[in-house]
């Protein structure tokens, strides 16, 4: 049974009952005429519904960013491995000849980055000043494996941040290492 503060009857502003607090806050006549709008049950659900999309977007974005950084770390490590492979590949065949440096580097890079999509890794080389862009092998590349010259390996990998179908950022990650040919 609802009890009414006797003093509040004369001065409604002193009535602290939950019903009256709502009335004091909003006070328009519609709240008085439609009591269903004054009910407080489910308020938390409404607030959760307001916050949930924001929180889910934030969490999904953080996951996406985490994956991007993980892939970038792998790409940097893989390029380092690839460049090292090229740097020491001179005359490494058993008969003293030099194997295809680009193919060897491509294999080394893709093996060093197992969670990256192989088909999307683009490798470019600059061997002793000769560029080989977007290749997985370079037949004449071994001719440019000359001790004391430089070999530069660049890898790019595309990554698109997706948040519930929304694609705010499309990245093209790039990593590069230059080594002296041994």
């Amino acid at each position, binding site marked *: 049974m609802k009890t009414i503060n006797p003093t509040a009857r004369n001065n409604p502003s002193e009535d602290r009952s939950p019903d009256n607090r709502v009335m004091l806050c909003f006070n328009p006549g519609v709240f008085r005429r439609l009591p269903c709008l004054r009910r407080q049950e489910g308020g938390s659900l409404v607030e959760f519904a307001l916050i949930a999309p924001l*929180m889910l977007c*934030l969490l999904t974005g953080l996951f996406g960013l985490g994956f991007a950084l993980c892939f970038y*770390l792998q790409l940097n490590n893989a390029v380092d491995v690839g460049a090292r492979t090229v740097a020491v590949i001179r005359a490494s065949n058993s008969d003293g000849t030099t194997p295809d440096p680009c193919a060897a580097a491509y294999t080394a890079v893709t093996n060093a980055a197992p969670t990256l999509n192989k088909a999307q890794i683009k490798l470019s080389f600059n061997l002793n000043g000769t560029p080989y862009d977007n290749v997985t092998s370079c037949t004449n590349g071994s001719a440019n494996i000359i001790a004391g010259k430089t070999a530069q390996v660049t890898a790019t990998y595309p990554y698109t941040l997706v948040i519930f179908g929304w694609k705010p950022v499309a990245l093209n990650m790039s990593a590069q290492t230059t080594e*002296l040919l*041994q």
Partner: protein
Amino acid sequence: MKDPAKSLLSNLLNGQTGQILPWVAVMMVCMLGLAGLGIDTARVYVIHRQLQSATDAAALAGAQQMPDGDYSGIAKSFSSGAGNSNNSSSFIPKTAVVTPLCVKFLKDQGLPCNGPASANALQIQQTAAVPMLFASLLGFKSLDITATSTSAMRGSKTAAVQRRGHSRHNSIDGLLRYELRFGRNAAFLRG
């Protein structure tokens, strides 16, 4: 008289309206702070990988010039930093520190410590200041990271080079041919 602090706590705990929004506001600050810390840490790992790659390349390049060549200059040219081969715009590296070493186990394998520095290996150490994105809000403007790499110079027993008619260390070509004859003796150490 009612304690205002108790009243606020009581409202927070017992009030039925607007409970989630203030809590989310407070939690959001914590979550964003932790997320920022995670992102900054991941960036540090990525940059450390880049710095390590540059330092490894510098150590290998410098060791190839040992013991008589300009190993220090070549090593620095392959390190990270403005104008060098492995420069990166993600961080601000300090000049690489080049230290010739006389490593005992290499000496035991026939790689003598000679040349002006009496060394058979080269150690490169490079430090970089990584600017913080989110941690800077908490007062951590940058974090210093260090990468160290050690590489052995080429070559082995002197006799083989003399047999080829080259003096021990004054010909890169002689050293290279020597390396081909005896395999790759260069040990690559990462520290």
